């Protein structure tokens, strides 16, 4: 099977926060640098028919498990958003404020004017996203990793401190909880700092996943509050079209990003992808001389978070001084250098290649996907007259779209956009359920018909 480097591409959105909208399978072996060798240095495996079939069957078999591993966080995110929308009225109140990216107002006299304004708003928003994606691709291509990291850091800072402070404030207002600033500051500080550490550095996998879900939910709530009606629906439609084009067209920015990352053998922007399994913390060295040769192939449980490329200053190849001393004592003096190590590694290994457990193969979904899915379901619960039926229908539609996307992923084995199918289904079901099914179900409920 060919190497599949997993990528998740960032996409720009407002306030410097991004959305990455890709799903990929990530066979663990491509992340693992076995004894300092890059994955591509392995000789290609010659597969017989049975092995290929087994691999295919394995793909299908683990496909179901990984679909569920994505269903759960997507469901959780949606549940958080819907619960907030239903209880905290702040996020459904339109107090006349809009984002600077959507300057045109929708409270116009004529329907035509409203349509025009919303289309202009959507166009502006999408072009902002396109421009920022291009900036991102350019930055990545010219290896300005520090800029990108700083950008991500700042945006997560904003989300984890400022937006969660507002959220908590509104929740307290809704439930009439009295709170002093000191306690609040303590809570927000702890929440934010732990979040930054989990997301940008190391942390337990579940905690990192929880934080990613929370920031996606917060972002979706912001969108639900500040985007006017028609603009929001148009943006959803337009962004799924853009996602499709950007990932699949040969000149699409996201595809270029993915291919560049593939050439360089690096994972992209780990802080913006939801990963369903632990990501192995290994070298993503910039330069050849700083190769992290890990002689412990099994990472500890707490090294969960993949960090963006960092140079390893003094690399002794894992041979700690104590170990070297001991070896010298036993075997005589020797010197382990980069070159000597590489030479040894190039020798055919007598060991069988380490088996991959099924748990190694994780699947990743970009946070932008979470945000837009939750935004769709949140809007359905906020503004639909069919209320819970519409919300439920959109929820099922999005899950089925995700399932189909993952099925396509299992078949095509390359980075795919996760938005188009789900958002299309979601939009179709929203409008159909709200306008067609709701009157039907209302009539049935009134006359107590059960179908």
């Amino acid at each position, binding site marked *: 099977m060919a190497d599949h480097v997993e990528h998740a591409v960032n996409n720009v959105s407002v306030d410097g926060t991004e959305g990455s909208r890709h799903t990929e399978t990530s066979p663990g072996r491509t992340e693992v640098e076995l004894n300092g060798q890059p994955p591509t240095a392995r000789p290609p495996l010659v597969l017989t028919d049975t092995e290929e*079939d*087994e691999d*295919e*069957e394995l793909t*299908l*078999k683990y496909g*179901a*498990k990984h*679909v*569920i591993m994505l*269903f759960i966080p997507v469901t959780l995110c949606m549940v958080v958003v819907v619960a907030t929308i239903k209880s905290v009225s702040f996020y459904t109140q339109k107090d006349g404020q809009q984002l600077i990216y959507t300057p045109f107002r929708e409270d116009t006299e004529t329907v035509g004017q409203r349509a025009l304004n919303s289309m202009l708003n959507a166009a502006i928003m999408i072009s902002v996203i396109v421009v920022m994606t291009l900036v991102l691709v350019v930055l990545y291509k010219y290896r300005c990793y520090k800029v990108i990291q700083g950008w991500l850091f700042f945006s997560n800072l904003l989300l984890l401190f400022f937006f969660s402070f507002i959220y908590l404030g509104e929740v307290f207002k809704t439930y009439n909880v009295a709170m002093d600033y000191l306690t609040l500051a303590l809570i927000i500080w702890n929440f934010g700092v732990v979040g930054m550490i989990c997301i940008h550095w190391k942390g337990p996998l579940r905690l990192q996943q929880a934080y990613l879900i929370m920031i996606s939910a917060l972002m979706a709530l912001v969108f639900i509050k500040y985007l006017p009606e028609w603009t929001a629906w148009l943006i959803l439609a337009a962004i799924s079209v853009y996602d499709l084009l950007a990932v699949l067209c040969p000149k699409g920015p996201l595809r270029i990003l993915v291919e560049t990352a593939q050439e360089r053998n690096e994972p992209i922007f780990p802080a913006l992808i939801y990963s369903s399994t632990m990501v192995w913390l290994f070298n993503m060295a910039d330069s050849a001389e700083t190769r992290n040769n890990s002689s412990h192939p099994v990472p500890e449980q707490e090294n969960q978070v993949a960090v963006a490329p960092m140079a390893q200053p003094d690399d002794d190849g894992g041979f700690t001084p104590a170990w070297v001393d001991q070896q010298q004592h036993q075997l005589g003096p020797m010197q382990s250098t980069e070159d000597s190590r590489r030479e040894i590694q190039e020798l055919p290994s007598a060991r069988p290649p380490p088996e991959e457990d099924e748990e190694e193969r994780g699947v990743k979904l970009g946070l932008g996907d979470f945000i837009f899915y939750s935004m769709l379901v949140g809007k359905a619960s906020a503004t639909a007259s069919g*209320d*819970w*039926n519409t919300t*439920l*229908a959109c929820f*099922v*539609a999005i*899950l*089925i779209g995700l*399932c189909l996307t993952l099925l396509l992923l299992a078949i095509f084995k390359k980075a795919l956009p996760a938005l188009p199918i789900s958002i299309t289904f979601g939009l179709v*079901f929203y409008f*159909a*359920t709200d*306008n*067609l*099914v709701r*009157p*039907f*179900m209302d*009539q*049935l*409920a009134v*006359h*107590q*018909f*059960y*179908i």
Partner: protein
Amino acid sequence: MTVAVFFGCAFIAFGPAFSLFVFTIARDPLRVIILIAGAFFWLLSLLLSSLVWFISIKASNSQDLRLQRDLLIFGVFFSVLLQEVFRFAYYRLLRKATEGLAAISDEDTSAISVRQMAYVAGLGFGIMSGAFSMINVLSDSLGPGTVGIFGDSQYYFITAALMTLALTLLHTFWGVLFFEGCEKSRWWVIAAVVSLHLLVAGLVSFTWTHTFTVHIHYFTSTSSQLRFR
């Protein structure tokens, strides 16, 4: 119209389905996917049938109440038939998937049998049908109000919950029977399922003693299940 009513009706309507889900389906990812896909197919059938009903409503005179009621009954029957059509379509899809999986794997059998898929698919249909019937009613029951203040039955919530429960379980059983009939090409089984479904939908329309109908439903469903043990 209190939290008690809400929880009571919610547990009556969804308790068994929820426990079935937790104990038999939640562990196996493939079954969860089949369940949600089943719910999706039911939703599609509802969408199409409500589209047809909507068009018929719009094309007719909205003042004529008699006609509206007749159109609604027509809508109900059409919806039932369409649900069975989609159940058949889902059966075909699942058969194809099973064949695909079986062809690839080393053993001759696939990870999940047709009987299990039938049960899960039926439960998916049932849960979605129940949810669509009951959820809005449940959310209304949380709020203030008095049931039957204008002379209608006071037992609206409880009968709605019981009917939802009956329908959910019936869909599950019908799923099993239907798939069994398709597998063994016993067309009379399929016809029986369709006519039972029509009967249930029709009975509810024409009788006001809901508890009586609930008893009928349990009887029919358990007897039909017993036949195939």
